[in-house]
Each structure stands twice: as C-alpha cells, then as structure tokens.
C-alpha cells in the first residue's frame, strides 16, 4: 500500500465515505458489456450452480444446474451459456476497420464479473470446456469447446495490465476509490459500493455494515452463503433429484430452485449495474481508448485464429511461449503504470511522494541555449530550473518527461537543495522542431506550473526468442507439440 492510498483510507474513515484516488476512469466500459454473475456449488471450485448473464440491466438470463453433481447437466449449462456468449462475441465482430494492415473489429467483448474470484471461475470454466470433443466418447454440443476457448481468451487477456476484456468489478472500483475498510472487506462488492455510493442519508460504514447481512445482500459469488446452502439449496436440489423425470413434482422443484437462485443472484446483478453507472460518471482517461484498441486487436486476431480452425489454447505455456508472454506482460504493465500517472494527477501523487516525480514552478529559462551535438552541428538544448517542494529523489542525468509535453525529454543536470525549496535544473531536448530558435510554446515558460516524472512510456526493443521447436537444452529442449485426442474428452471436470 502506498502512502497516498493509506492516507486516502484514513480520510475515508474520517469522512465516512470513499475517497477518490483517481480523477479519471482508467478502465474502458463498453456500451453493451456482458455482465456475468456466476455461482458455484460449495466444495467444488468449478461446478457451476447458476448464473445471471446479459447485456441489459432489465433483461438478465438465469441459467441453472438443478443437480450440480450431474455431468450431463453441467454440459447443458455450458451449452446454454455458450449460446449467449457466442452470440455476444458474434455481435462484436460485425464492423471492422483497417488499422496497420490489419482488420480490427470496431467492438470487442467485455465481460464484467463481480469480483476476483469470478475471474478465477471464468478461467476454470474455460479450462473445463475448451478440450471437450464433439464426437467420440462423451460428445458435447459444438458450442461448448468454443465457449471454453473464448472464456480462456478473455481470462488470459485479463492478465495484461490495462486490459478491459474481463474485469472484476471490485478491482475496477478499488482502482478509483479508497474506502475505510480492509482489503478483505473491499472484496465484497456490496460493502465496497456501500462506501462509494451509499444510499441517501446513510454513511459509508453503515451501508457497508448492512452489506454484511447475507439475507439482504447474498454473497456476490461464485461461492454461496453456507446458511442458504443448508437451509434452502440442499432441500431444493434433493426435491428435484428425488422427483421423477417430467413429473409435476419435478417442475415444482425446478420452480423452487429457480426462485431461490434468482433471489441469490438478483441483488448482485443490480449492484453490478449500479457500479457500472458509478464508473461511467467518471470521465475516461485519454489512453483508455488506446488500450481498448489493443483489446480489440487481440480479439480480432483470436477471432481470425478460431475462424481458421486453430487449436485450443495449450494447457501450459511452453518455455518460449512463457518467456514471450512474460515480456509482453511486463511491457504492458510498465506502459500502463506510466501512462496512468501521466493522465491523472492523483495517480502521479504516488510518484511525487516517493520522489520519482516532482511538481513545481519554472523559475529560470535559458531557451536559446545551443551546444555542440554528436554530429558536429550545434543543437538546441534549453536549460530550465524548476523550483519544487516535493522530495524529488532523482539522480543526476535521470531522464524525465512532463505529462503536458510528451515528446520532450528533460535530463537532470543539477539538484540544489535549499532549506525551503529544491531547485532542479533540466536540459531539454526534443519537441522543439529543427529551427535554430525553438518556436514559442515548445519550451516551458517562466512561472509555468509543471510536473516532471521519471516514469514515462519508453519504446523498447523486442528481444527475439528462439522458435519453440528450437528450445535450447537449458530449458528442457523442444516440447512435444499438442495434438487433440479422444483422451481430452475423458478428462474429469473438476
């Protein structure tokens, strides 16, 4: 936890409501997100029990498995879920643009789940279904393995920083507000939203306290409330199982189950849409759209791959795939952290407090300074001095950038610490055109209020890794390529 977020939490306690830690929205919100509230059977991490899913607040679809231990019923659930998800994926792939010689869909699927455990459930569900066979032993409807691949795609995409393909609502909210409760309590969507957006006349802590009553606010899943399990769910499942197929008794039992599960899911469903409204009220940060384009591009590529008959995602990454993925994850993480700070002063505050960035006033400008450049010609390198009261723990020759002046880099030449202020001298380069005298506006003016940060997005060179079939001996040699077999269908769902 950073000093800023600790401070924000303390402020939230005092104020009795959540405290903003971001001025802008850093996640993309689709116009038609697919909201998915899954429930699992207690004791089995990926045995689906029920789910509420849909793209419109007033039209949720309830799916349920009347006997979660029954394998066929599970696949029935997966098939009906697949109908909805694949329809949604299809609806996102209607319009394309051409960007950098690539067809990119104008839309991409966005799956919203209540919490981090929900993301884990999506991952498990994808893993349980993507290798199923549509022929041979234990055949499943053709849409089931396809569902598995799309769910896997979304959950793998969600590992990238800044991706909005699959979001846990609690994390999305937690990125923008600090509450006066613990991180564990923040994982409860009802309590978190109670702090952020309490009902009129109720304080955050009271709203969060009310959210702890499972009768009013059932858990947001995937695990259910144990009391509900024992007193309502277990008898209802038993009644359904004991009744003969197609008997009126069974229909009644199904109705009871449906009512009970709807009662468990509906409050969370409403919360999800309330949370979406709360987030939509924040203006989106500039790079949100750029990052969503990355999501769209990734979606388009995978869509193409699926259309071309590509194999399901591997069970495990091979050595080369893992290394490549780690590098990509790191690159996107760096980029995301840096751009987020550049676009949001409250995020930048975290960098200022650790001394990686500073804010101050320009007190001296030598704008026409020219020095001999590398190729013998003189180049324009203005010097400016910024007076700041921030810690500014930066070493000489560190490169910095101002959020308002991307494309121009400052190099720290000198740091002069005085009792009441710190004077940082910067040598500027870039962003001043080739003219001998920098055009007006390209160099910070006297008295300009400016922020400089050492964390800014940098281009980085892609390392070339060996092809997988030439994995060196140090990493176990080339892996065996995957070929789908009927054994995949025998895999237990657990």
């Amino acid at each position, binding site marked *: 936890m950073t000093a800023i977020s600790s401070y924000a939490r303390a402020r939230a306690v005092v104020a009795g409501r959540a405290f903003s830690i971001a001025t802008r929205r850093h996640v993309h919100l689709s116009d038609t997100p697919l909201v998915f509230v899954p429930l699992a059977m207690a004791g089995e991490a990926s045995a689906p029990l029920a789910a509420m899913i849909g793209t419109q607040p007033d039209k949720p679809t309830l799916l349920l498995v009347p006997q979660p231990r029954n394998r066929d019923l599970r696949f029935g659930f997966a098939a009906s879920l697949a109908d909805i998800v694949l329809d949604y994926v299809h609806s996102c792939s209607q319009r394309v643009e051409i960007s950098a010689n690539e067809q990119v869909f104008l839309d991409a699927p966005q799956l919203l789940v209540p919490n981090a455990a929900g993301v884990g459930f999506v991952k498990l569900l994808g893993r349980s279904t993507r290798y199923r066979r549509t022929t041979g032993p234990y055949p499943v409807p053709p849409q089931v393995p396809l569902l598995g691949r799309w769910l896997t795609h979304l959950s793998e995409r969600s590992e990238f920083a800044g991706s909005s393909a699959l979001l846990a609502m609690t994390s999305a909210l937690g990125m923008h507000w600090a509450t006066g409760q613990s991180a564990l309590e923040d994982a409860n969507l009802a309590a978190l939203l109670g702090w952020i957006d309490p009902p009129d006349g109720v304080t955050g802590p009271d709203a969060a306290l009310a959210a702890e009553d499972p009768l009013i606010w059932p858990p947001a899943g995937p695990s259910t409330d144990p009391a509900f399990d024992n007193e309502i769910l277990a008898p209802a499942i038993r009644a359904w199982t004991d009744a003969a197929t197609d008997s009126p008794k069974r229909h009644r039992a199904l109705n009871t189950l449906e009512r009970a599960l709807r009662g468990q899911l509906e409050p969370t469903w409403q919360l999800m849409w309330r949370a979406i409204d709360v987030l939509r009220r924040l203006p989106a940060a500039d790079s949100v759209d750029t990052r969503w384009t990355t999501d769209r591009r990734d979606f388009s590529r995978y869509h193409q791959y699926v259309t071309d008959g590509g194999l399901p995602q591997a069970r495990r990454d091979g*050595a080369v795939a893992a290394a490549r993925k780690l590098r990509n994850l790191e690159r996107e993480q760096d980029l995301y952290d840096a751009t987020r700070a550049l676009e949001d002063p409250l995020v930048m505050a975290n960098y200022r407090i650790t001394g990686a960035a500073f804010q101050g006033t320009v007190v001296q400008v030598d704008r026409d300074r020219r020095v001999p450049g590398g190729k013998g010609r003189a180049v324009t390198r203005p010097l400016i001095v910024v007076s700041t009261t921030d810690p500014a723990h930066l070493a000489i020759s560190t490169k910095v950038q101002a959020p308002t002046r991307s494309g121009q880099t400052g190099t720290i030449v000198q740091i002069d610490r005085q009792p009441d202020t710190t004077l940082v001298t910067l040598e500027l380069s870039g962003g001043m055109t080739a003219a001998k005298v920098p055009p007006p506006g390209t160099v910070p003016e006297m008295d300009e209020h400016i922020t400089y940060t050492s964390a800014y997005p940098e281009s980085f060179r892609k390392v*070339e890794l060996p092809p997988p079939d030439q994995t060196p001996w140090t*990493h176990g040699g080339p892996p065996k390529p995957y070929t789908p077999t009927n054994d995949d269908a025998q895999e237990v769902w657990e």
Partner: protein
Amino acid sequence: MTFDPAAEAERVTTDILADFASGRHLGVVVDSPPGAGKSTLVVRTAVSLAAAGERLMIVAQTNEQVDDLTCNLSAKLPAGLVIGRLTGSGHGVPQRLAGLPNVLVDEKAGNLVSCEITIATAAKWAFVKDTVWPWAIVDEAYQMRSDTLLALAARFERALFVGDPGQLDPFSVVQNDRWRGLTWDPMQSAVAGLLRSNPTLPVHRLPVSWRLPASAEQVVASAFYPYTGFRTGTGPGDRELSFDTRAFGRTPVDAVLAEAATSGWGFLELPARHTMRTDAEAVAAVADITRRFLDRGTVARSGDSSRPVTPDRIAVGAAHRDQVAALRTALADLPDVTVDTANRLQGREYDVTVVLHPLSGRRDATAFHLEAGRLCVLTSRHRQACVVVGRAGIRELLDTHPSAEPVHLHEPVKFPDGWAANQTVMGHLEAHSIAA
C-alpha cells in the same frame, strides 16, 4: 586436522576447471558464497580457455560488472590475445577501457569476430544473432532471469554458470502465478531453471569466503547457506578495526562503533515506533554512524597490512529506493560513501557497511521485506564490520508475521526461508545491541 583455506579453494577450483574443460557436460554450475573469488575463477577459466586457442563468450548482468571483468581480464591475458567488449548502442567506450591495449570496444558483434574473448551484458547478448561460441561463462547467473537465458542460450554450446545462490532473486514488475511449478518458469533465476531442466549437471561450491571476516562466518553461513555452509579465509584476530582517536563522552554511536570494532557486528536499536519508510531518526542514526567511522579515523587491519577506512571503503545499504534517497541526502557531504539498495550492492565489497534494517519501524513484514537474499546482500558486503540500525520490536514483528507465502505444486521449496534467516540474524544482532 587444520583447515587450509587456500589449499582447499585451489583444489575446488582445479576440479571446476577440469570438469568444464573436459567437455563431458553441457553446463557446469558453481555456487559461491559472498566474496569467494567468483571473479577470480571467471578470469582464470577465461584465460586458460583463451590461451588454449578456444573462443569464448562471457555474459555478465550489468555494464558495471562487464567493465570490471574486462579490466581484470585485460590485466591477466597473455600477449597476443584480444578481448572484444560488445556495448549497447549509444553506450560509447567506457572510460576505464579506453586505454587498454588488448580490448576492442564495438556495438556490433560482427566487428569483434577476431577476438578470442567476447564479453557483454545479458541484455546485449539477447540481440546477437547467428554466431555460436563453443564456450561461454555466465557470471552472476543467479541474478539473471530464466527468460533472459532462453534468449541467448543458442549462442553457446557449453557454459559455466557462476553465481551466489544466497543473493536476491531476479525481479519482475508482473505478478503472475501461471507458470508456477513448470521447470521452465521464466520468472525464476537462470540457474534454478537450468538445474530443474537438467538435474544431472555438476554443481560445485567454492568453499572459502575471502571477503568476510571470521566473525561473520557462523551467522551468515547458518542464516543464508544453512545446508552448504562456507569457511572464511581469515581466522579470528586476522582482521581488526581500530580508531585513531578516542571516543568523546559516552554516546550510543561510539558504543556501537566500539562493539563493531571488537566483534565485527553492531546493532543500534532505536526506540520502538511505527514509522514511514523514510524514518527520519533512523536515517539520521545511519548517517551519524557513517560519519563517526570517518571522524574517528578508523583503521582496518587485515593480517599484517593496515589501511585507513576512507569514505570509498564504506557502504550504506537499505531496502527501498526512497530510503536510499533520504540517506544520500543525509550524507550529501560525503559523496564518496556508497549509498544504495541491496539490489545494487550485490557483488560489491567494502571494509565497513552500515545498514538500515529492512523491517525497522514497519507494521507488517511482506515477502519483499522478508526475502533472505536482501538481508544476505546487506549483511555480507563487509571485510571488517557491519553495523545495523533498526527500531526495537523487529523480533516481535517477525513473530507476528510468519511467512505465509502459498506453496505451489512441483515448485522446489526455496531455502533458506527468509523468515527463518531474519530470525537467525536478529538473534545474532541482539548480542551486539546498543540502545540509542
């Protein structure tokens, strides 16, 4: 039987050279405790291979390490042989290499084909293509990440991996458990991955730490090298700190200096308090101790030779960068004193170190603060004495925060455990504690 450190070290080194040169193994791993002559081994292996007419590549992790090695190699290389120092673009010719007659510096590997030895950072090697060297030496291999090794492994046929397993593991900004348990997990150290994929490779251990004083042998070995251990090259009494001036009055700082001079260890215990990371009192105490070592005219004796402890022979270490920044500001009048984080102090050596304890003033003990490698680096850089500054209550903090890291299937358990290592070190420091 008496232990003859020099003979023992020589025997192990000869074994390593024979094992590697025999060509029977694709890789040979050498584990080395702090200051056990790792660089000497690298230089000796490189020179003997080059002198036998072989071509080899050397991989180190930072430009500084590469330049250090290049200088050492340049001095030992027989006439007629040339070292090629491959640099990153825009790096230029490092100043201390400019005057060396047997060193070529270039940005392109193609321009260095005539060199018997080619040396560069791992990051640079990842961009070299097509050429294959029959031999490679990877220095500080435990600091290198497994995915980095993957990028350059095609460049060599056989390799000698040298490193200190007790130091900090490589680091990633990404937290992801998806590769846990895989033998090729890209987030582990290069050596860990190498040995998991090739469990039959020979592993040698350098037995003697030439850097650490005898006073550090027991605690550093039992805390950080619990199963392998090591001996120090010097015995009790071989190293000594003395002061030119006497203490004036009775201050805790002078008391901790006296303790460090006699026992090799000192712990200045500030009153218990929860603080920000840049605890102003602790920072001031570290700065006071450092300055006092210099003001008192400290002299370090090792065997028969004595030399004054100058600012460049002192290092100040801390866990976080903002702590380092605060310490640097507090020691701005002594620019020659090295002040840095544990990560950057790896592989360095000083007469005296002053350390801000990573757990000082904290309310919690996270995996970062408990990491054994961090404490190991901080408490094993010294030839003479190590003084630690911390708030009271570190023992209690440890007791309330046992390590709770999840255990992953198929993942080798890492020893030493950071929590246990911290307990061992604190147990030792308590005996040398001076209340501030």
